[in-house]
C-alpha cells in the first residue's frame, strides 16, 4: 500500500506493481465467485487496478485484508462487474435491478468472509448435513453434472435439483450462524 496514495501519478504508478503482486491472488479468487470465468475476471481486474491507481482515496484508511477486500469490492469491483453484462439487459427478461443483484450484488454476510474462513465454515456446515445432502454437494464440487449426480445417487434429475436447492438453503443458515458466532 506504500506510495499508493501519493499525489504524484508516476509514484503511484510505480507503487502499483508491488500492490498488484500482493493482492492479485486474493482479488481474482474473489471475482471468480461472481463470474466463474478466468478471462472475464482478468479483464475486470485490470480495470479495477487502473481505477485504484486513478483514484486511490478509498483505500487510505484500510488496515486489514478483510477491510481491503470489502472496500475494493464496494467502490471499485462492483462498478466494473455491473458493466460486464449491462449491455445484455435490453435482450433479457430480467429487470436491471435483478441483473445487478445477480452479477454484482450487495455484500451479504458470507461475502465479507475471507477465503480461508469460508472454507472452514463450509467444512463445518457440510459435516452437519445428512449423508445424502453432503454427498450431493460434494459431487457437485467435484465438477459433476446434475445428471451424473442423479445416476450416482440413483434418483431423478428433478429430485437432485430439489435436494441441492434445499441443502443450499440449509448451508446458508448454518454458515450465517457460524459467521455470527465468529
Amino acid at each position: 500500500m506504500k506510495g499508493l496514495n501519493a499525489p504524484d501519478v508516476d509514484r503511484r504508478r510505480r507503487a502499483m506493481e508491488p500492490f498488484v503482486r500482493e493482492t492479485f491472488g486474493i482479488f481474482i479468487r474473489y471475482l471468480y465467485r461472481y463470474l466463474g470465468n478466468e478471462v472475464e475476471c482478468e479483464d475486470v481486474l485490470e480495470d479495477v487496478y487502473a481505477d485504484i491507481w486513478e483514484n486511490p482515496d478509498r483505500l487510505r484508511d484500510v488496515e486489514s485484508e478483510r477491510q481491503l477486500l470489502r472496500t475494493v469490492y464496494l467502490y471499485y469491483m462492483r462498478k466494473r462487474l455491473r458493466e460486464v453484462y449491462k449491455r445484455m439487459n435490453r435482450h433479457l427478461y430480467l429487470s436491471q435491478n435483478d441483473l445487478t443483484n445477480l452479477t454484482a450484488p450487495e455484500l451479504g454476510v458470507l461475502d465479507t468472509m475471507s477465503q480461508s474462513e469460508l472454507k472452514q465454515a463450509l467444512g463445518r456446515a457440510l459435516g452437519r448435513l445428512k449423508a445424502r445432502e453432503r454427498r450431493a454437494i460434494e459431487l457437485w464440487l467435484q465438477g459433476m453434472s446434475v445428471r451424473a449426480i442423479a445416476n450416482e445417487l440413483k434418483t431423478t434429475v428433478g429430485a437432485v435439483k430439489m435436494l441441492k436447492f434445499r441443502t443450499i438453503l440449509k448451508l446458508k443458515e448454518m454458515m450465517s450462524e457460524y459467521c455470527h458466532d465468529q
Partner: protein
Amino acid sequence: MADMNRKIQELLSDYAGALRDGCLPIFLQSLTRQEGKELTSSRDFWEAAEVVRVLNGVGFADKAAIADAGLFASRVDANIASRLKKAKSSPRAKHTNGTRSMTKTRKAEKPI
C-alpha cells in the same frame, strides 16, 4: 398447454451450473419472462444464490487457470499508460466542437 417454465430449484441449479462453467450470459439469455418474474419474487433464490457464489469461489477458484501476477502487473501498467496518454492528449476534450456553456462564455467576456 404444459407449463414449460422452470421452477425455482431448477433455475438455481442452472444458475449454479452456468457460474461453475463460466457461461453466465447463456443462463441469463435462457430466462423467459415468467421465469424472470419468478426470480424477482423468490427470496429463497437470492439467499441460495449467495451460497452458490461462495461454493463457486471456495470450490473452483483454486482450480482455475489463473495468470501469473508478474505478467498481470505489466498488463495493468499498460492500461495505466494508456489512460495517462489519453488524459494528456485530450485535456479539454469536452469543448472540441466549439460549444461552451453560457456561464463560461459570459465569464470569458471582458467587462466594458
